[in-house]
């Protein structure tokens, strides 16, 4: 029995090591100077940790000819993220509320259509979407990429909120309507205050999802609005000459940092979000 317990912990610790190694390597290497990387190993602890590579990655890492650092991508991602998250969560909440509480005719059909729509790979939709957006002048623009994020966020957001509002008792809506409250008042004064937890879950899901997006940003944002993931890939995978591993890894870490912080600050909500987004209620 004792031996089995030891084996159990040994296995779990081994697994924990497997999961942490890529992050540890990136963190350690980003704190080393290039001379140390050339002679040493990426598995070794930094001898004299410093943030020089971080500064260089942030301020002056090169994307092709421009050497303005990953901060350009950071601010682009930020500008894409805030309106996309706010609008897609709001749209999801309103949709979920309208579907679950008001049950208009065709509600189930719309829900099924949305759910199936969520499974269509982006690749199937990309080219026609590019055509539509360029026809209305939104292709390669900030409003364009924001619209695309809202559109592709609709299925999961609607579903999460619908499942939540479907779990509330019907009496809530009935009583409010007897008191003369309408669609919007019930939503803002009764439903939203009840939805804090699910709102947090939805926001976390969208923040990590949109920050981590690569494909949509690559296709729809245009060069001037390219998000951090796109810029990161350019910095690392198209650089000429000797690879500055410390700068590349610092840039990688900076890109990973926002969702990592969200994760560590909100572990339980994050897990609820990904399982709700994944299992669909």
């Amino acid at each position, binding site marked *: 029995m004792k031996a089995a317990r030891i084996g159990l912990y040994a296995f779990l610790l081994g697994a924990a090591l497997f999961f942490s190694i890529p992050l540890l390597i990136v963190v350690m290497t980003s704190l080393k100077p290039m001379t140390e990387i050339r002679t040493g190993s990426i598995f070794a602890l930094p001898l004299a940790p410093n943030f020089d590579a971080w500064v260089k990655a942030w301020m002056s890492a090169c994307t092709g000819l421009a050497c303005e650092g990953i901060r350009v991508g950071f601010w682009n991602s930020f500008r894409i993220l805030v309106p996309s998250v706010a609008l897609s969560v709001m749209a999801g909440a309103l949709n979920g509320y309208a579907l679950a509480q008001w049950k208009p005719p065709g509600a189930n059909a719309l829900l099924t259509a949305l759910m199936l729509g969520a499974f269509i790979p982006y690749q199937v939709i990309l080219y026609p979407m590019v055509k539509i957006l360029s026809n209305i002048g939104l292709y390669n623009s900030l409003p364009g990429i924001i619209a695309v994020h809202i559109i592709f966020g609709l299925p999961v957001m609607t579903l999460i909120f619908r499942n939540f509002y479907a779990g509330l008792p019907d009496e809530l809506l009935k009583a409010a309507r007897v008191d003369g409250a309408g669609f919007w008042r019930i939503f803002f004064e009764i439903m939203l205050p009840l939805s804090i937890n699910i709102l947090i879950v939805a926001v976390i899901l969208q923040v990590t999802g949109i920050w981590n997006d690569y494909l949509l940003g690559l296709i729809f944002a245009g060069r001037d609005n390219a998000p951090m993931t796109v810029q990161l890939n350019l910095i690392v995978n198209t650089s000429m000459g000797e690879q500055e591993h410390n700068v590349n890894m610092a840039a990688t870490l900076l*890109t*990973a940092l926002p969702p990592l912080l969200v994760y560590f600050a909100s572990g339980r909500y994050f897990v609820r979000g990904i399982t709700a987004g994944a299992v669909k209620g």
Partner: protein
Amino acid sequence: MRISGLAARLVLSPTVLVTVVCFYGCAVWTAYISFTKSSFIPNYTFNGLAQYERLFATPRWGVAYTNMFIFGVLLVVGALAVGLLLAIMIDRNVRGEGFFRTVMLYPLSMSFIVTGLAWQWVLSPSIGVQHFVRDLGFPNFTFDWIAQQDRAIYTLVFAGVWHQAGLIMAIMLAGLRGVDRDIWRATKVEGIPTWRVYLGIVLPMLRPLVVTCVVLLSVAVVKSYDLVVAMTGGGPGFASDLPGKFVVDFSFERANIGQASAAAVVMLGSVFAALAPYFYVELRKRGQ
């Protein structure tokens, strides 16, 4: 009353429009292009299955499509096995459960671009594992799969399992916690070994969750794009190409929209094939 009912419909109408136009309309549009003579610009002359015939005669597509199955089977089996094993171990009343869960789930918060780059460095022959082991005093040690034509696709599996195993663990752990405690008590009284309880009783109870996980992972496999872009760029050559990358490259870089559309439709078909087990389970549930 009526006005409010109208408000609900008004609120939903943009979503109806988006669903019809952006999801289904665009998918039908792409499907239509795949049956035409389109090459670098759309040409709406109907051309039967010619695009598909050409697609499956293209060596690069053959590699990408085969890779999807290699990557898919290994990722689904790998992530499921690792995730399930971890869930069972964590469920054995271990200390530091919070720590283990945190470490196993954090990869999910990272983008596939970051994941791919980090693993590219771990597996890189010049700075990663191979370099490390050689420095330890084994100068002939070789582990350069990421640079090998016939091995690169397997390195994507490492990164994929690393990223997804935590999700499977979380889903399975929730399932294990839902198992009736009386079952454990009863089997203990009977003296049945723990592993047999898992294999014979608990796992069969979790079958619906396993199906969910398989479907989730399979759909993720068909959609895979960023991981391969960041980790191998589809290389060496196009040895580790995947359909998702093939379609994007042919839509925007190689500019052959006819071929890209046909490949995209094959992707769509693959997603629905991956969803089939889920529909099967749902239909059986309703039938009972």
